[in-house]
């Protein structure tokens, strides 16, 4: 210890160090209290049967409290590299929340239109008008036969996700 550090300073620094550790630990605890509960995290998987879906009429499925749009494309609809191809069918799978501020866009003839701020998305989920900054988000999913499991990252998901990033 140098000459200008006395025992009182040492006690002060020690107290400050203990208080800092305690304070940081409390902050971690407070942060974790606001994290989603285990029951919320565990309920995050939903199965969807794709065989009954009619072309050109999107259906909405609830997953993690969010709407998921599943649209089987008709022949006139443009192909896109985010299409999920199963046999001869092409599907658009998207989280049905406008990427602007999270309203649910409604299907009007050939596109999803958001009433809140006028955003529009085409049949491939791509934003074509208004403030949305990116296409409708892709939920993680896996495919086996005609069944889609939302909440799991399958190889088809990874392929589409990397195509969307490019």
């Amino acid at each position, binding site marked *: 210890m140098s000459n200008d550090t006395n025992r009182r300073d040492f006690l002060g620094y020690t107290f400050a160090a203990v208080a800092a550790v305690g304070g940081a630990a409390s902050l971690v605890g407070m*942060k974790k209290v*606001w*994290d*989603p*509960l285990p029951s*919320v995290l565990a309920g*995050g998987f939903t199965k969807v049967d794709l065989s009954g879906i009619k072309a050109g009429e999107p259906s*909405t499925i*609830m997953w*993690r*409290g*969010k*709407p998921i749009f599943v649209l089987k494309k008709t022949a006139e609809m443009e192909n896109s590299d985010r299409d999920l191809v199963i046999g001869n069918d092409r599907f658009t799978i998207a989280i049905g929340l406008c*990427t*602007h*501020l*999270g*309203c*649910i866009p*409604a299907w009007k003839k050939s596109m999803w239109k*958001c*009433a*809140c*701020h*006028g955003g529009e998305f085409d049949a491939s989920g791509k934003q074509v008008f*208004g*403030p*949305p*900054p*990116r296409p409708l988000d892709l939920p993680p999913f896996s495919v086996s036969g005609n069944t889609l499991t939302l909440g799991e990252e399958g190889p088809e998901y990874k392929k589409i996700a990397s195509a969307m990033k490019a």
Partner: protein
Amino acid sequence: MAKFTKANSVGEWLDQRLNTTALNKVLMTEYWIPKDINFLWAMGVLLATTFGILVISGLFLMMYYKPDVNLAFDSVNYTIMQEVAYGWLFRHMHGVAASVVFLIIYIHMFTGIYYGSYKQGREMIWISGMLLFMTFSAAGFSGYMLPWGQMSYWAAMVITNLFGGVPIIGDALVVWIRGDFNVADATLTRFFMLHVFLLPIVIMGLIGLHFYTLRIPHVNNQSSEDIDFDAEAEKYLSGNKKESKVIPFWPIFISKDLAVLGIFLIFYFYLVFFHYNFAMDPVNFDPADNMVTPAHIYPEWYFLWSYEVLRGFFFDVGPIKAFDIGLAAFGFANAIFLLLPFLDRDPAVLPAYKRPGFNVWFWILMVDLIVLTVYGKLPPTGINAWVGFVSAMLFIILFLVLPIITKADAKKRGA
């Protein structure tokens, strides 16, 4: 310990132990107020009263409200509105006061701006006031969520989604704030805690700070005259009341405040009994449904101007997305008023009508805020989108040019 003699009255007993005579002087009978102020300076007392109404009516509502997604809607719309005796009265008093408190805050704020009350020496009054405004906004929003109607739900959805704009951690931050993947029970209960406990406590602390900030620089006045409060108080206390430029807050000045308060309360109870609907959006009488968005969502009137700044930018500029521009503009709109004392480069404290450039600036800002408020409620399509864009741009430009305008005013006066 101080020496205690036998007290002859309850007042004397308290004075010996709590020094109530000195406290009463500092807070009331020798708290000096300039004579030259008009009814616009009564807004502080109006706000304190309205906040009192909010706390008391809120306590009564809280006794029957149930913070649970399955029970909240009915506890408000059935139990409180139908079953509890006078429950409807407390709800309407609470709802109307929550709306009216913002009207008075805005009058209070723009009075301060017009008379230059945020300047030189009074910066802390302004900053603590703006912190109060922000906390009131958070309290207003968290309370709006609690009835768990459609508008409540989607307001929560939109506001929590705004945090998704934070770089890198945005998406995780939104889930953390909500406590779920979407707005759900965890979100409701934590906003309930914020609304009924944490934010009111913070507001009370800030009100204390806001009052204290007035103590040293004192209240401004209509002509922004620089009064020597000590000398004027001396005159008043020596009996020269007519010549003194100040009067004590209690019991002299408060009588004027109470007269204005009386008129305000007539207006307030007129709204509570005959026009409570303006603070009750019809969409919010549909229970929250996370699978259906209402056709057109908008906030309460007092947030419309900043909402319109948020959505005013509807096209991308080069690589920057419209969403990010809107979000940045929204952040700017909500933070820039805090910096007002430092953007105003005029060294003198003067009312706006004595500062030609600033006067024009002030009234353009007023008109722009009204336009933003009106268009914030209209659907953002066609020409409305462009009006929104122009007025949002104008709002930002006004604050960017403020230092230049105020500097030019000072130069013209020869300062």
